């Protein structure tokens, strides 16, 4: 259902862009999302968002989608008297809850290493920093934990392991699709589009994307977090009523 709506929007935009291309000659990069709000409803099974736009002239396009940033703890297990127990941990800050990148060419070909590092292009360039680690900890250990974090996020399908393709039509229009799985975190996401020419970004555009819970699920979550005691009491009341009801119904049978 999303895709059909996108195609219509896409075609509409195509028409508008065609009509106003001369007026927009100054602007070499225009991009937008098919949706600025992803609603997590009771029937949420993931969502696709289409990013589309137009470019003027020669160059490569890179799209980076990052989720809200927070602290994440990475734990390492080891054998302790035969069983696997968490023995070691490291906390990173500035870790995006979600990360995906899409490009027109393989990452290595669009921009040199320093540009990619600066713009956080590619999972290995995410600017996450260890917290409270003393100087004695070797960088190799930090790297091990950092790559473990990325590996876990990739397994949870929250970080894109592979670079997604961007389709370019007649050297002017481009589009790419971002998929958000069911376990996606709510919050404000950032969609950054870079227009790169000869290895340096000449234009950039950032668009926010909000992912939030709506409907009953959102109300339940909000209530559980803002009125915890009342929520607990209601949960107990529901359980008592359901138990009593069950006993009453099945007594008659």
């Amino acid at each position, binding site marked *: 259902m999303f895709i059909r709506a996108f195609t219509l929007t896409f075609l509409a935009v195509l028409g508008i862009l065609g009509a106003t291309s001369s007026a927009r000659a100054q602007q070499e990069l225009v991009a937008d999302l098919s949706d600025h709000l992803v609603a*997590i*409803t*009771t*029937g*949420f*099974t*993931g969502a696709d968002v289409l990013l589309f736009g137009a470019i003027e002239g020669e160059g490569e396009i890179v799209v980076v989608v990052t989720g809200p940033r*927070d*602290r*994440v*703890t*990475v*734990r*390492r*297990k*080891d054998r302790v008297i*035969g*069983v*696997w*127990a*968490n023995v070691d*941990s490291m*906390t990173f800050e500035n870790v995006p809850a979600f990360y995906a990148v899409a490009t027109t060419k393989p990452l290595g070909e669009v921009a040199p290493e320093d540009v990619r590092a600066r713009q956080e292009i590619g999972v290995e360039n995410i600017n996450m920093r260890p*917290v409270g680690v003393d100087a004695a900890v070797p960088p190799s250990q930090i790297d091990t*934990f950092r790559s*473990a*974090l990325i*590996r*876990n*996020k990739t*397994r949870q399908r929250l970080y894109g392991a592979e670079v997604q393709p961007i389709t370019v039509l007649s050297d002017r229009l481009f589009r790419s699709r971002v998929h958000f799985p*069911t*376990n996606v975190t709510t919050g404000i996401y950032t969609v950054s589009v870079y227009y790169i020419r000869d290895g340096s970004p000449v234009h950039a555009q950032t668009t926010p994307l909000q992912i939030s*819970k709506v409907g*009953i*699920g*959102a109300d*339940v*979550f909000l209530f*559980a*977090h803002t009125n*915890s*005691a009342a*929520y*607990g*009491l*209601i*949960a*107990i009341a*529901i*359980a*008592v009523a*359901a*138990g*009593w009801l*069950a*006993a009453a119904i*099945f*007594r008659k*049978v």
Partner: protein
Amino acid sequence: MPSLIPIYLPIAEMSVDVLLILGMGGMIGFLSGLFGVGGGFLMTPLLIFIGVPAAVAVGTEANQIVASSVSGVIAHWRRGNVDFKMGGVLLVGGFLGSSIGVWAFAALRTHGQIDLAIKLLYVVFLGTIGALMLSESLRAILRSRRKLPPRGKLHQHTWLHGLPLKMRFRRSKLYISAFLPLGIGFFVGILAALMGVGGGFIMVPAMIYLLGMPTSVVVGTSLFQIIFVTANVTLLQAINTQTVDVVLAILLLIGAVIGAQIGTRFSGRLKGEQLRGLLALMVMIVCIKLGFDLVVTPQDVFSIVPAIGH
């Protein structure tokens, strides 16, 4: 995993299949009706197994056990099989124990040891109880084959009966120190909070073998106090960790209520010792599965969690 009827669980923050959850509730409900146990010790590991975070599984299961215990206790109450005085004393211990349990749960979670603690507790308690039940029911089956007379009286006087603060429990025909039920309630309360169970599988043998209560009032009294202990756990987990998912709890209890009724009807067709033997076997299977998970090399020795407390 393709979902037929997906539903998004607001607290667990994941999408599950309604039919899967109803089916799980029904299956565990059937077993609990068949064997006369709460089923929390089977449901919590199963929830963790399908990907529900351990903390949410424990908090939500406590909520569901409130419902199943209420429906169970009504039937026993009608037959007069609840010793309210004994239940009340057990409950005082249970409140204290479960409150400490919820606190310990939060502390273990902060240190990243909650998953290990839950699994270790399961392996130790299910292993012990399962082995005891299995050997007991095997002996009972052998004895009935050889037509030997049943065992002598189980209730014997030990130093435990010499403790002070004696109380009379008319319904249970006992005159014992209040410290005994207080202690048992306290201990089972801690386990209820940490393991996401009602604790009936420990409470019932403790009441029979340690307190010497008549078997007829044991299940009703145990269920009576489980209602309040699990309600306490539900409330404290809701306040401290926000891990009680009412949507999940409602789905589970719909399945469980129906399953339990079917199970109760089937239980009449099996002999007591056969039932206990089967239950013991199932307890041992869960125990071995969890024990295996603890020793087998994990797919990735690294795991990630949102940082707590900043």
